[in-house]
């Protein structure tokens, strides 16, 4: 057992899989010699050499296209997309090509590839480097999407993503890169499509994702002092989605809240809430509640960004309000 930062967990995760499987390659902008702009890939070049850990030009279409083509021809490549906002400049490759090719070819083409990307706000980067875009990927049939919220989940879910025969987007909340967590020694492999109950409770179910998980947890601890016993679920995997864990919790608590970093419209919580409404309506004791950012681009100034992103106080207050 060792305490690792999330950013150290990223490089350990990549190293674990590259060590295990010589067909795993890793490319991206500034990932090799520079060790990544978030210092998440330090040491990989030295360990695995310039063929398997390769710097690319600032060419997101070429990066994503390259991992797709390589996956079609026998590699299990991993691409880093420096900021998830850059999905917008290579979305054709992701949404039209990678997501659809297996289906369009009736299974002739397998695409065992991973795209990892730094996502979300909280670091004062402004509107074009702070978005939470996991919902974009979730909306496209043919993409699997996971969002690890702890160092150990980063390693385990990344390993599961690399070993999965389908394309997986690994979304890393960049505000968590400096966060720490206990990580067991040895190989860590998790599985896609499993949510974690990170706090058990009987009064209300709070579903959170990524950087909102520690905030939801802290809000739940605070609510406990008021006698409200909240269950907190880290959704972890948007596709496949662990509906069972969520519905079982709602059946127990009768109340349901999502905490999302994304803008209001069409966030992942809207889909989850609609499933709860369809399938557990008669277990509910109150309205479904979604806590999101306002439907806005994220502002840069810390005072404004802190207002936009759900805070521990705001989460606690909204949850308290649902209990009336």
């Amino acid at each position, binding site marked *: 057992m060792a305490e690792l930062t999330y950013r150290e967990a990223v490089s350990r995760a990549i190293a674990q899989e590259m060590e295990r499987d010589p067909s795993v*390659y890793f490319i991206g902008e500034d990932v090799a010699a520079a060790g990544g702009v978030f210092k998440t890939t330090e040491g990989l070049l030295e360990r695995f050499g310039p*063929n398997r850990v*390769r710097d*690319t*030009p600032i*060419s997101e*279409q*070429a*990066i*994503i*296209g*390259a*991992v*797709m*083509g*390589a*996956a*079609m*021809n*026998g*590699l299990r*490549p991993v691409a880093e997309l420096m900021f998830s906002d850059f999905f917008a400049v290579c979305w*054709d*490759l992701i949404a*039209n*090509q990678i997501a659809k*090719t*297996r*289906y*369009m*070819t*009736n*299974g*002739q*083409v*397998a695409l*065992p590839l991973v795209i990892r990307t730094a996502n979300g706000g909280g670091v004062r980067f402004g509107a074009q480097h702070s978005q939470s875009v996991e919902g974009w990927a979730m909306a496209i*049939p*043919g993409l699997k999407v996971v969002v690890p919220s702890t160092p150990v989940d980063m390693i385990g879910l990344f390993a599961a993503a690399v070993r*999965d*025969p*389908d394309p997986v987007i690994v979304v890393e909340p960049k505000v968590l890169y400096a966060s720490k967590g206990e990580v067991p020694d040895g190989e860590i492999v998790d599985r896609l*499509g499993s949510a974690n109950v990170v706090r058990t409770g009987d009064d209300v179910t709070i579903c959170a994702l990524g950087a909102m998980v520690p905030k939801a947890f802290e809000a739940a601890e605070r609510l406990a002092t008021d006698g409200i016993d909240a269950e907190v679920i880290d959704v972890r995997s948007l*596709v*496949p*989605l*662990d*509906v*069972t*864990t969520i519905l079982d919790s709602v059946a127990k608590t009768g109340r349901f809240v999502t905490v999302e970093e994304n803008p209001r419209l069409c966030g992942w919580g809207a889909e989850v809430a609609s*499933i709860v409404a369809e399938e557990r309506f008669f277990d509910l004791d109150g309205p479904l509640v979604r806590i999101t950012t306002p439907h806005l681009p994220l502002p840069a100034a810390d005072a404004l960004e802190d207002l936009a992103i759900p805070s521990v106080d705001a989460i606690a207050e909204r949850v308290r309000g649902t209990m009336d």
Partner: protein
Amino acid sequence: MMQEARLFEKRAQDLFLEGLIKGTSHLALGQEAVAAGFAAALRPEDLVFCTYRGHVHTLLRGAPMSALMAELMGRASGICGGKGGSMHLTDVSHGAMGSYAIVGAHMPIAAGAAWAAMERGTGQVVVCFFGDGTTNIGAFHEALNMAVVWRLPVVYVCENNLYMEYTPIGDVTAVANPAADRASAYGLESILVDGNDVDEVYETATRLVDRAREGGGPALVEARTYRHGGHSRADPATYRPDDEVKAWLARDPIPTYRERLLASGVEAGEIDLVERDALELVDRATEEAKAGPFPGPDALETELWADGGSTWRS
């Protein structure tokens, strides 16, 4: 090969008119020499990427004709089970790695396949066909740059049929030869060939494919050719001047090649036999395709994921 391709495309056109093929199609009538010249220069293990105008490229890699025809007709017996259609013909077992319907997308994908070939030491060469319109989209430039920097075994082949869909390519492009004039920007040799001369295409293809296989890096070729029809089924191509069409029809690659064969001493009867065999092949493929079943409801939700299904939740 050219004759089979020509008759396949003509049959596809007829089947559209009969209502047996739905949707859209982009025929390569008149452009067959480019696909044929390259197909003849490749080895079975090589990989080809093409565009939505990709029937003949896929066919000439060796994909079974009846399964291609069946795919156009939306049958379960189609090469993609009916899920792909005209713009997505793919036959991985013959190295036809897909027809890509978003302009330029396959340029970096082909680079990626070549990267894997290089790293795995397979000796494969990748050939990527694209149209003149592609030279004005970003993915073209990103892919060429990366292919050169990484010294990848990939040959990019621009089929310049003079029109990006409906608009003359010259009206919207900064240089006269949309691919060849850009080659120097990536440190590549500027190569312009007569895309209606199958021998010239074959010779160039052989040289560049061999060079790529030996580690000599990527190439960019511009092959000038001409569509006999419109951009797609919906396009009567009335925007093209009559004398231009007439001049290019006179340079139709298939009669031109027939003349060359006759002049070199091949018996006319021998050529007629090839043509008759091609027609029989197309007739047989058409009948087989027509006899194929339509996909049933069981097929709809299959093959999104590698487990064969499409489940997204527990």
